């Protein structure tokens, strides 16, 4: 399982690229209609950075992905950039010099999610309920924590993470945006899900699918 983090990241990037137009449509509801394009540019950047990154050490791969996403700019670029750097930090800490995905545990993933959420929250000053990517990311962390605490197998924990991301993203439809561009839509932003939370759920889904398939 999870033979290749590189493979999983590429799969997620491609899922993002394929969702370009629907993600733009979501952003058109409450933002400026560019989210799918910006994410697709980020995904291309990620693939380019991965291509230029020789090793297969998880921390290095995630750092490469961080660079790729940050290069897309917009609000979402630095959010992924910082979040992924925090994940890379957790991975690097775990095993300096690790070059494969050996040792992938729910506990490790929980720590990654928590670090990412802290970094994103610190950067963008958003809280749960503000209708952002955090509303999909925090539930993923919670699901992983619960699964880890319950001693569930990795696959079950991954499925729970995916379900949590999807439910979190779906729940943003009921929220009014409190930060970012959509905040100016206030109450008018209710009714359609947050684009950043939605694309994050898509990524989690693609990563989990790839992990489970291999």
């Amino acid at each position, binding site marked *: 399982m999870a033979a290749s983090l590189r493979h999983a990241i590429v799969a997620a990037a491609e899922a993002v690229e394929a969702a370009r*137009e629907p993600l733009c449509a979501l952003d058109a509801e409450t933002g*400026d209609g*560019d989210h799918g394009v910006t994410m697709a540019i980020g995904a291309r950047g990620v693939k380019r950075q991965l291509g230029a990154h020789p090793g297969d050490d998880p921390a290095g791969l995630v750092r490469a992905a961080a660079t790729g996403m940050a*290069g897309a*700019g*917009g609000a979402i670029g630095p959010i992924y950039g910082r979040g992924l750097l925090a994940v890379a930090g957790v991975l690097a800490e775990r095993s300096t010099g690790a070059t494969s995905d050996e040792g992938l545990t729910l506990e490790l993933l929980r720590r990654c999610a928590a670090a990412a959420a802290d970094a994103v929250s610190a950067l963008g000053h958003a809280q749960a309920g503000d209708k952002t990517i955090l509303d999909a990311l925090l539930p993923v962390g919670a699901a992983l924590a619960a699964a880890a605490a319950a001693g569930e197998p990795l696959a079950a924990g991954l499925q729970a993470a995916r379900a949590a991301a999807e439910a979190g993203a779906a729940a943003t439809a009921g929220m009014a945006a409190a930060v970012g561009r959509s905040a*100016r839509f206030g109450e008018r932003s209710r009714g359609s899900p947050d684009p950043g939370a939605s694309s994050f759920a898509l990524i989690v889904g693609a990563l989990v699918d790839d992990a489970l398939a291999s």
Partner: protein
Amino acid sequence: MLKKLLNDPFDAVDEMLDGFVTAHADVVRLAAPRVIGRREPAHDKVGLVVGGGSGHEPAFAGYVGAGLADAAACGNVFAAPSPDVCLDAIRAASSGRGVLLCYGNYAGDVLNFDLAAELAAGEGIATATLRVSDDVASAPPQDRAARRGIAGDLFVFKVAGAAAERGDDLAGVAALAGRANDACRSLGVALSACEVPGSGRPTFEIGPDELEIGMGVHGEPGIRRGTLEPADAVAEQMLEAILADWRADGVEGGEAALLVNGLGATPYMDLYVLYRAARRGLEAAGWTVSRSFVGEYVTSLEMAGASFSVLRLDDELRVLLDAPARTARLP
């Protein structure tokens, strides 16, 4: 899908910038990827970096040149430039006396420019930041700092650029940019939508006889969706929102620079008719208009519509606004 004359949408920004620096090689150069710099970098002055997402041309690249900006950081369409691009712009603008970062107040721009400012500090380049927040439709008077920046960019950039050019120090340039921003109020009206290349659809829907007053330059919601009215009636409502905002600050009149900015698709004919109405309205409200700008300064791709900006002039702002500048898109 709106019709465009572009190639692969993913290449649009780079091809545009390539065309831009080639067409205006007498004024600008590509200082780094996505960074437009002056052809002849300035020496021993505060640097002025402007920037933001693309799709607002001539902002921001069109404002690089002697007397105005030193560099423009250009993002993807409607997406702030990444920290790397901002940092490269800061480097291109730096000649040892610090760099002012001046851009519209949007979450994405704040995040990216702030990260770049940190990186610049690590390289020993001091920066200051001024976020343009002139759009009265985007937040109430008591929350002015939260407002987004629209065509007031022109005034703030111009004042900052002139102050930097004459040799003011970083704190002084930043203070004058802030003074210009404090003295500027804007409001837009949109008649049709624009489309981010590659997104497959316009950014919003608007009926064939509708307009939206207060809409932002990326299609952010305004203060009133209504039916199309004669230009004088539309201008009156726009101006009244601006004047009400001034009154909330206790300002009942003054000397103004008036900018009527086209959002992209609106012809000069309509812009001058709007200008006429705006000027008459301002004068009727007790203002004098001593400087006028009519044209496309901060656009939203092919959006139809316009914005008004009123800069309340004092002696210093007037001098800085009048100071010579030579950029690709401003005389």
